[in-house]
């Protein structure tokens, strides 16, 4: 597996390179967008880690250029943490977004996740009783959950909550809703049971539970899976 790391800060490229090489990946390095495009046209690359703020050709433009003929996973790297920047990056065709300063192990985990999904793509056939949301796979018959192809062990309650939210993608469930649907009971006043369960689910299915990809908190309203 070959990974291309692009950033104008050489030390950052170097350190990411070391981490990835340690995981057994082939690493290619570029220091601006144009160099990156050159390497892409010559070598077989399976994933790109791309910084946004770069001289000559910035990350967003590079991303748009490479998306013309390639569908490999792209993880954007940026010091900009604004929501607007994230949305811009994701709509331009990025698969993930990591803000600086980041934790190297988290980045490696994200790379692994993307590559698993990328290589698995096509092998998963969407059958009846299966819910697939990007890397999240739920089999409602065998009641099993996989994230990026790896099994996740959930308690029955956790599974019920996850299935409820996954079956209704985009819908926000209040704690009352979840109580009624999962426990078939009214809410107990001032209870944070649901919040704790959700937290546990996130710890099991998310790479970084504080920045969830699947199970999101809608503060003061409820929970949802986009």
């Amino acid at each position: 597996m070959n990974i291309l790391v692009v950033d104008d800060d050489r030390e950052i490229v170097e350190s990411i390179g070391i981490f990835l090489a340690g995981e057994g990946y082939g690493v290619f390095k570029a220091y601006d967008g144009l160099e990156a495009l050159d390497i892409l046209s010559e070598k077989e690359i399976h994933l790109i880690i791309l910084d946004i703020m770069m001289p000559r050709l910035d990350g967003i433009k590079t991303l748009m250029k490479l998306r013309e003929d390639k569908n490999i996973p792209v993880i954007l790297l940026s010091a900009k943490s604004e929501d607007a920047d994230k949305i811009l990056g994701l709509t331009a065709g990025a698969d993930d977004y990591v803000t600086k300063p980041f934790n190297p192990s988290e980045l490696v985990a994200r790379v692994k996740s993307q590559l698993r999904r990328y290589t698995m793509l096509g092998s998963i056939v969407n059958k009846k009783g299966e819910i697939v949301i990007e890397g999240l796979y739920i089999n409602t018959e065998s009641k099993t959950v996989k994230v990026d192809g790896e099994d996740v062990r959930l308690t029955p309650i956790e599974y019920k909550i996850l299935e409820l939210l996954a079956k209704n993608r985009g819908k926000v469930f209040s704690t009352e809703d979840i109580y009624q649907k999962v426990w078939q009971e009214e809410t107990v006043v001032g209870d944070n049971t649901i919040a704790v369960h959700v937290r546990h689910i996130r710890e099991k299915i998310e790479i970084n539970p504080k920045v969830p990809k699947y199970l999101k908190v809608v503060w003061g309203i409820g929970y949802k899976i986009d």
Partner: protein
Amino acid sequence: MKRFLYSTYTKFIASVLFVVFVFGIATIVTDTVIEISKEDEYIYNFENEFLDSRSFQHLISAPGSVVLNAYYASANEEGEADITKVEKYIENALSDLYCNDRINYYIKWNDKTFSNCGAENAEEVPSTKIYSHEKITPDGKDFYEYSQKYGGFYLEELKQFDEAVEIEVYTAVKEEHINERNIMWTRQKDMVEEAFTGSVTLLLLAVIILIYLIAVCGKNKKGECKRSRIDHIWIEVSVAFGIGVCFLTGLIYVMLAEAVMYSGFSHSVAGTIACLLAVCASSVFLSVLLSITRNIKCKSIISSSIIAKLVVFVWHLLIELIRKMTKTIVRLKNTTVKLLSKKTSVILIGMLFVYTSLVGIFGMMTMETPFGLILGFLLFLAAAFVVGLRAMDIDEIKKGAHKIREGETAYKIPALKSDDMKLLAEDINSIGNGLEKSVSEKMKAERMKTELITNVSHDLKTPVTSIISYTELLSKIEKLPEEAKDYISVIAGKSERLKNLTEDLFDISKVQSGNDTVNLERLDIGLLVNQALGEYDNDIATSGLNFCVNVEKELFVKADGRKMSRVIGNLLSNALKYSMKNTRVFVLAMKNENEVFVEIKNISSYEMKFDPDEITDRFVRGDESRTQEGSGLGLAIAKSYTEACGGKFEIVTDGDLFKAIIKFKSV
């Protein structure tokens, strides 16, 4: 029933019935009039019997009136009658009397007697039934004898002409005439009474229908207001039309009557025309009346009446005029009072003095005051003009100063009329210029500050990224000496703190410079507190602290969920960090009348020496925590975020008790 009463068909049928009844009345009246006009004479006058009738009175008093008339006709200016003339008049008048064939009479006047039946005295008047007998004697004794109420009342007057008159009048109506008249009287009475009963009945019916129509018109069965198309015509127009039609009908009636009486116009044709006219007039009357009623019911009487509109319009105009005048007078008074200072008042008093003197001088010289008055008035006008100019200038300056104060710093006061005011205006304009300049500089500085924050934060983040990465790489090397591993873990901890610090610094700068977007939405802050507690569940479980949570249901506020989660998160993590071991932490969320509040209370593990008001400022922390992890911006961010969401944030300390209170308006 209601449906039936309010049905359009019922209303229509009622209207037709009304017209039919009016037509009926017209027909009955016309027929009766035609019938009666065919008789020789109309003698029925609503008395009890013929003998009470005026017709009978005329007969019985005819000879007496002849005598009296004779006196009147012959009297000279002094009121003295020539006896021979009187005699002659009586003789002529009696021979021409219209009712000679119906009555017998005997008149004795002084020595002369008149009779149409050769009677020599009263007893000789032939077979009669009804009579009147009156007698005046020279000695002043009057004698009346008559069988009816009316009769000889003429003779008494004669004494003013001739005091010595001796007169006796005896009148009798022939019996066959009375019989014949009695029959005719009864016939006419029957006719009139029949017509009267008929018309009154029909009239009553018509009135009932009219009341019904007035009651139901303009409303449908649901009680909704409904106007028909003709109601949109100006009321005055329809009323004028109605009056016009009625007036025209009356006029045609009069013309018809004249035509029938004098030109021999056919009775029946005239009757038909009259009846048809009655139909027309009653239809028009009904339409107009119902239209007005509908307009009154639908409260559109004013809007569909020109006069009412005009009155309302004039009334508003008057009010507006009075309002404006009052305003102008007040304004004029205010400015004038202010301006009657120094220079202007000196001018005015001077002019008043000149005016008075001039009036005095001209008054003495010519005794003609108008010239002086006019001159004085002109002088006053001139003074008022000067004052007015200044007042206008002052107004301009006031307006300009106000606009500049309101933030329109680029506003310039336009050129003024008076010189001293011009100077003031220029000064204000230049202050405005200065303000404009400083405001734009401030805005530029603010923009630069924001850019600086963004750039600095970027420039900080990049090296921190490298530090974190390389520290982690170092930590993976196993053959390093133990000290080196300790040093590395210190670097790792500090770089983590540096990372948090950079992020927090960026966040607080953004919100405090107003460059943050706040998405306010209705959310349950109680739920949010529970969610945040859920996020910190592991930390709480391992903290050794006892969390007492009391969160009420449905605490709805308008806030930004992500920002408030950060606020609650910061407060919880503070409580976790700085609480004394094995104490309780209280988390409360409840509401009173119109406020929702969240309270987080804990016992501090160190002595809090800080000022609760300053702790929320940037970088201020309790001394104890300075060496621990965290940026020291937690409370500052909590306060700024809460305030950005429109809430209140307060820190209270009491000994070792630390209390954070968040308040929101309940929605």
